[in-house]
C-alpha cells in the first residue's frame, strides 16, 4: 500500500500575473513543506499537464532540478490523476522510495472561449464540437430514458451547480467563491443544447502536488498520512459515436473503473460506505450521471437523490465538498490532484467551514474525453490502512 504524505495546491483562477512555472513552484513548495522534504529527497517525478508543457523539462526547468527522472503524463482531463497513479506504482514496485506527482495548467494565456484541445491533422470528416456540446448529449438521452421532464431536469442541473457554488464559497482556494441561486442559474442563456454557462466548469489556471511513499515509510513524513486504498483506470475503446448500442445515459468506463476500485478497497456498498467524493463535474449532467455510474444512486434515480439533497454538503454523501470543477475551477493537469487535496484536508480536519465529520473512505473520480469515448480514473483514500 502507498500513502500520500504531503500535498500542496494553489488557488485556482485567472492568474494573469502567474505563469505555469510560477504555479508549479508554488504548489511544489507547499507540498515539500507539508512533508518536510527537499527536492533531493525525492527520487522521481511525474508532471501532469494537457497543454501547458512537453517532456519532463516542464518541471525541471522552473525548479532547476538536475538529472532526476521526470515523466510528463497526459490523459486528457484525467491527467492529474494519471500523474498520481504512475507515482504510486513507482513506489509500490520498490523502484523508488519517495516520489512526487504534480499537475499544472495555464489556460488563461490563450485568447480562446472555452477549452481548446490541440489535435493532429485529420481528413476533416469529424464534426467539430466544443466540450459543452459534447456533454450536452447526456441531457435529452437521460430525460427520455428515465422520464424526467424539461423543467425537472433544469431544476436538477441547477441544484448541482448551486451546490457546487455554495461549496466553493466556503473555499479560499476556489476560482469562484460566490453562492449562486438556483433561479439565477436556471435563467442563464444557453450555450450548448440545454446547458448554459452555469452548467459548465470554469477555465482556470492552477497547480497541485503530492508527495508519495510506501505506507510503511509514511510515519517519517507525517503523523496523518492519507492511504491509497484503490487506484483504477479504465480507457474505453472510443466507439460511442459510431456504435448504436451506446445510449448516452452512462459512462461505461466509469462503471468499470469504479467496480475495479471498489474491489481493490473491499467496498461492497459504495452508496453507504463512501463518506465523501470528489467527482468530475465538468458539466452538471456529468455529475448527475456519475452518481449512478459510481453506484451512489440507483440507475435512473440519481436525479431524485440530487433534488433530495443527498449529495449536498450536509447530505448523506457530500459530493464535491470543495466546489468541484465547477467553482474550484478546472486547470486540466491539476484537477485530479486538487480532488485528492480536498480529501487530504478533510482527513486531517483542516477543511474548516467545509469539514465533514469523521470521514472514513473518500473517493476521487477524474474523467477525460467525452460521453462515448473517455478515460476514467477512480481512487479510494482513507486515513487508515485497514
Amino acid at each position, binding site marked *: 500500500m502507498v500513502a500520500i504524505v504531503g500535498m500542496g495546491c494553489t488557488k485556482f483562477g485567472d492568474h494573469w500575473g502567474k505563469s505555469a512555472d510560477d504555479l508549479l513552484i508554488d504548489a511544489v513548495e507547499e507540498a515539500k513543506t507539508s512533508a518536510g522534504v527537499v527536492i533531493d529527497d525525492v527520487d522521481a517525478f511525474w508532471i501532469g499537464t494537457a497543454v501547458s508543457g512537453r517532456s519532463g523539462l516542464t518541471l525541471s526547468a522552473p525548479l532547476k532540478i538536475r538529472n532526476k527522472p521526470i515523466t510528463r503524463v497526459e490523459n486528457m482531463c484525467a491527467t492529474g490523476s494519471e500523474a498520481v497513479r504512475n507515482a504510486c506504482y513507482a513506489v509500490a514496485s520498490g523502484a523508488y522510495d519517495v516520489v512526487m506527482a504534480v499537475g499544472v495548467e495555464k489556460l488563461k494565456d490563450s*485568447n*480562446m*472561449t*472555452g477549452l*481548446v484541445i490541440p*489535435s493532429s*491533422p*485529420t*481528413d*476533416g*470528416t469529424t*464534426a*467539430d*464540437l*466544443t466540450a*459543452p*456540446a459534447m456533454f*450536452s*448529449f447526456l441531457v*435529452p*438521452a437521460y430525460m*427520455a430514458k428515465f422520464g424526467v421532464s424539461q423543467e425537472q431536469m433544469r431544476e436538477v442541473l441547477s441544484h448541482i451547480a448551486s451546490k457546487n457554488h455554495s461549496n466553493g464559497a466556503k473555499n479560499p482556494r476556489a476560482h469562484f467563491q460566490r453562492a449562486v441561486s438556483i433561479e439565477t442559474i436556471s435563467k442563464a442563456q*444557453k*450555450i*450548448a*443544447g440545454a446547458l448554459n454557462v452555469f452548467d459548465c466548469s470554469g477555465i482556470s489556471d492552477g497547480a497541485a502536488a503530492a508527495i508519495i511513499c510506501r505506507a510503511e515509510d509514511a510515519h517519517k513524513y507525517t503523523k496523518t498520512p492519507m492511504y491509497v486504498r484503490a487506484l483504477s483506470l479504465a480507457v474505453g*475503446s472510443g*466507439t460511442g*459515436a*459510431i*456504435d*448504436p448500442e*451506446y*445510449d*448516452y445515459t452512462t459512462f461505461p468506463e466509469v462503471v468499470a473503473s469504479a467496480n475495479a476500485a471498489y474491489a481493490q478497497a473491499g467496498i461492497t456498498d459504495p452508496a453507504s460506505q463512501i463518506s465523501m467524493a470528489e467527482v468530475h463535474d465538468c458539466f452538471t449532467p456529468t455529475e448527475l450521471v456519475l452518481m449512478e455510474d459510481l453506484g451512489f444512486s440507483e440507475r435512473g434515480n440519481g436525479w431524485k437523490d440530487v433534488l433530495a439533497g443527498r449529495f449536498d454538503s450536509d447530505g448523506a454523501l457530500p459530493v464535491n465538498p470543495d466546489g468541484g470543477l465547477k467553482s474550484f475551477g478546472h486547470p486540466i493537469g491539476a484537477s485530479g490532484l486538487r480532488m485528492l487535496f480536498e480529501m487530504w484536508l478533510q482527513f486531517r480536519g483542516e477543511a474548516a467551514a467545509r469539514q465533514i465529520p469523521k470521514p472514513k473512505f473518500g473517493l476521487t473520480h477524474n474523467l477525460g474525453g467525452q460521453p462515448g469515448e473517455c478515460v476514467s480514473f477512480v481512487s479510494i483514500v482513507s486515513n487508515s490502512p485497514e
Partner: protein
Amino acid sequence: MDLLHVKIRKANQMSKIGITGWGWYIPRYQLDRGAMSSAFRMNSGRGSRSVAAYDEDSMTMAIESARRTLRAESNINNLIFSTTHSPVLDKGNASSMAAVLGLPFQVGAYDLGGSIRSGFGSLKFGLSQNGESLVMLSDLRYGRPGSDDEINGGDGAASFTFGENPVVEVVDVLSESSPVMDRWRAEGELGTQVWDDRWSADQQTALMLQVVKSILEKNSLTEADLGSIVISSASVRSVATISSQVKASSLQSSEIDQFGFLGAADLGVRLAWTLENAKAGQYILVVLGADGADAMLLKTTQRLSSAQFGRELVGTVEQVDVPTYLTWRGLVSREAPRRPDPEAPSAPAAARNHDWKFAFIGSECTACGSRQLPPQRVCMSCGAIDKNRTCSMSAVKSTVKTFTVDRIAFSLSPPVVVGVIDFDGGGRFRCQLTEVTPDDVAVNDRMEMVYRLISISSNGVRNYFWKARPVRENS
C-alpha cells in the same frame, strides 16, 4: 428537299448518343427581391430568387443534381462540370465530384466552365463522346447589391447523362458566335458588370432569332411543330423580346422563372423541368443567348413514358433575410467567436481515406456484420482485424438518436447543430445537421445525407463532407 438536307438528317438519326437521363437541384432558400430593394433603397424586381445556403456552392449543388440523375445501371466514362463560379481553380472540381459520386477512378473528369455559355458547350461535349457522359451544370449568381446578377440571378444545378438508346434524341445543334462585350468579370472580382442592356439585348436577340429560324429551316420544321421551347439568357430584355417574337414561346413553362437566371445552369434546369412535363414524340427547342446564340433541337422518344428521374422539387421554401444572404455569400464578414480557425484537411489523410472522405463509404465486418462509419480495420464489435467490406452509406436514411446545438463552435452560419444519427440497417455517425432550425430538431427525426461545405481554412482550403438533413416528403 435537296440532297444536302437529306444527308444531314440521316447523319443525325444515325447518331446513337442522346440524353439518357436528367435531374435538377434548386436550394431550399429564397430571397425576396423586394426585401433587398428596401434594404438598399433601390428599385429591383418583384418575386424571389433562389439562394444557395452557406454550406452550398456550385459544386455541392451539381452533386445533388447528379445524385438525382445517375441510375444503378449508369456506366459513366466522362464527367463534365460547368459553372461561372468555380470553388477552386487550377485543380479541377470534377475529379473530386467523380469521387463523391462513387465513380471508378477510370473516368475522365473535366471542368469546362468559366462562362455562361460553357453549359451548352458541355452538352455538346456529352454528345460527342463514345460511351456515357455525365454533364453537370451549376451556378451561383450574385454580385454587388443592386447588380443585375444579384437581382435577376438565382442559384441551382441540373445534370444530364448522355449515352446510347437515348430517351431524348438530339436532332441538331446550331451556333452563332459573337465577340460583343455585353458582360465581363475579371478573375477574383465580385460580380459581373454589364454594358448597356438595351444594346446587348439588341445584339443578342438578333442572333437568337437567327438560330431559331435557321435550325427550324434546316430541319424542315416550323414553330408549330414544336412541343416545347426553352429560352435562356441573362438578359431579361432578350428573353422578353424573343418571347414576344417567337410564337412557340408560349409553350415555355413560366414556373421555372421563379428562381432567377441560373447562369451556366439556366438552360439545363429549364430543359430538365421541360422534359419532366414533356410527352413522347415531341420536338423541344433550346435557345441560349450567350457569346452569340446556340440552338439545340431535341426530340423525345417513346422511352420517355417509362423514364423515371428524380429531382429536387421545390416544396416548402424558406425565406432568408438580407443580412443572412449577404453573410452566406461572403459579402459581409461577421465577427467570429474566439475559437481556433478551422484546419485544412490533411491531403494525405483525405487521399488514404478517399472512399470515406468523398463517397461516405463505411465498412461492414464480414465476421459479425457490424457497420462502422468511418471504416475501421479493427471491428468494434468482435475485434476481427481487416475482415471487412465496403458499405456505401450516402443513400441510406437515418434516425436522430440525440442532438445538440453548439452556440460557441465555429460555423459559417452559427449555431452548429450536431446530431448522432443511427442508419437504417445499422451504423451510427455523428455529424452536422443542415437545413434545420435548432428549435425544430427532435429525437427520432428522419435524416438523409447531403454533400456540403464544412469550412474554409485560413489558407483557403475548402473542406467538404457529408451532413444530414431532414427527409422531406418531396425529396
